[in-house]
């Protein structure tokens, strides 16, 4: 057997991503306060149908088993079904994330008839008030209606995807019950300070006590709940959670954004983490295999300021994106370091000095700002 651990081999990068996230459009009917991609308005440079089909052909050639499609709201694209059908009939499975606004009874039946397709419905509160405070007025009713349509169409076990915030940690069991009621599967992921979330993270991210609560809950429920392996920073609390304990950025995952730019992961839409474009000569495969950024991410990481802490092997220093957008050095603790090494550093970052997301497709609607402000002040 090779002496290296599997994690070491993963860190050195794979010939192709295990899965990748592909945001199909920046257009969105919602304006969630934590949107990773600051979505709202379509970008005129977005990939054409022909270009998107060519990306799928390339993914098939690289044997990427499945792609996580998101946005924006991906179902806004007129060619959404064409692209999904092209992928799934090519052997590239699709999991797509949606707010459910465009899933009516007929679309639910169409989705239910497709193979190799998973759906993740975004829900950030087990009740209307908690959800709508983050995702916008009416979004709870909308997504519940989509769930009802999918259940009625016999789609099978769709996924309910929850971003864990300080306002919904107490609802983890309620989410589980809701999922069970639909025969659905619960997926919970970590809140990142990316996109519009860079502003709202400080008020929304779970407290230290809540992080311990999430960790214990995951130890009890980890085998039945999906997490995208996004909580590995909690491993410093004790026994490791199930899943890959590493940052997969540029190693096993990456992001293709709506205009074809390739980033290290879905949480770092910023020039510093842009590896290239699917429109470059050589396409996506050349970016994955030869980009300088991805090569550097596959080098062994330096624990830096974390070296003197005994937990680095457990937590891997946490999430690169979380550090970057909170203004922390990448070779130091995560802002949510469970040993408490991150919080004082975040507090010491001068106001306005943390990097800003490179792009913003938010709709310039003052009403949205008015809805968002109270949340940001709750901190």
């Amino acid at each position, binding site marked *: *057997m*090779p002496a*290296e651990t*599997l994690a070491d*081999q993963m860190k*050195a990068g*794979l*010939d*192709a991503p*295990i899965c990748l996230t592909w945001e199909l459009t920046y257009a969105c009917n919602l304006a969630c306060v934590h949107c990773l991609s600051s979505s709202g308005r379509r970008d005129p440079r977005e990939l054409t149908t022909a270009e998107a089909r060519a990306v799928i052909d390339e993914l098939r050639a690289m*044997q990427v*088993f*499945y792609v996580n499609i998101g946005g924006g709201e991906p179902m806004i694209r007129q060619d959404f079904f064409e692209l999904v059908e092209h992928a799934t009939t090519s*052997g590239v*499975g699709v999991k797509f994330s949606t707010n459910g606004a465009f899933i009516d009874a007929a679309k639910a039946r169409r989705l239910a008839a497709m*193979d*190799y397709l*998973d759906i993740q419905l975004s829900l950030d509160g087990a009740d209307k008030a908690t959800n709508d405070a983050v995702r916008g007025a009416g979004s709870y009713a909308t997504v519940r209606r989509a769930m009802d349509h999918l259940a009625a169409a016999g789609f099978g076990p769709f996924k309910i995807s929850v971003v864990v915030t300080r306002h919904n940690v107490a609802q983890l069991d309620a989410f589980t019950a809701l999922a069970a009621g639909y025969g659905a599967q619960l997926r919970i992921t970590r809140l990142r300070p990316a996109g519009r979330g860079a502003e709202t993270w400080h008020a929304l991210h779970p407290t230290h006590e809540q992080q311990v609560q999430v960790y214990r809950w995951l130890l009890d429920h980890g085998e039945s709940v999906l997490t995208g*392996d996004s909580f590995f920073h909690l491993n410093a609390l004790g026994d490791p959670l*199930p*899943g*890959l304990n590493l940052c997969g950025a540029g190693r096993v995952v990456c992001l293709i954004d709506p205009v074809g730019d390739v980033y290290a992961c879905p949480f770092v839409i910023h020039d510093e983490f842009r590896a290239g474009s699917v429109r470059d000569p050589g396409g996506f495969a050349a970016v994955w295999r030869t980009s300088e950024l991805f090569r550097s991410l596959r080098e062994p990481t330096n624990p830096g300021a974390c070296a003197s802490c005994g937990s680095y092997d457990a937590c891997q220093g946490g999430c690169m994106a979380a550090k970057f957008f909170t203004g922390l050095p990448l070779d130091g603790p995560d802002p949510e370091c469970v040993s408490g090494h991150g919080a004082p550093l975040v507090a010491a970052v001068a106001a306005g000095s943390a990097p800003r997301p490179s792009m913003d497709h938010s709709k310039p609607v003052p009403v949205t700002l008015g809805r968002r402000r109270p949340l940001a002040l709750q901190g």
Partner: protein
Amino acid sequence: MRGLLSEASTSLPAAELARALELHPQVAVRPEPFGALAYHYGNRRLVFLRHPDVVKVVEALADHADLAATLRACGVAEARWPGFVKALAQLERSEIIRAR
């Protein structure tokens, strides 16, 4: 991304060696530097095949009468067979391979 697979030694049940197996028709195997990734399109399980010899055996299962013949044809020394039997049992539980 569970089911990290590696060889491990155990006692050798003879009946296992006489079984006829095959790669599940809904599974794709993608070569990687460490071995391969196997993905089941039906149950969405992703499994790491952590040794090139495991990959070779999995892909050859359908071409031989039984597991013993497959292992022999792939040049796997008998001393390593217990590990392969255990690894393949795990793969069968994940439906990466199945009886034929």
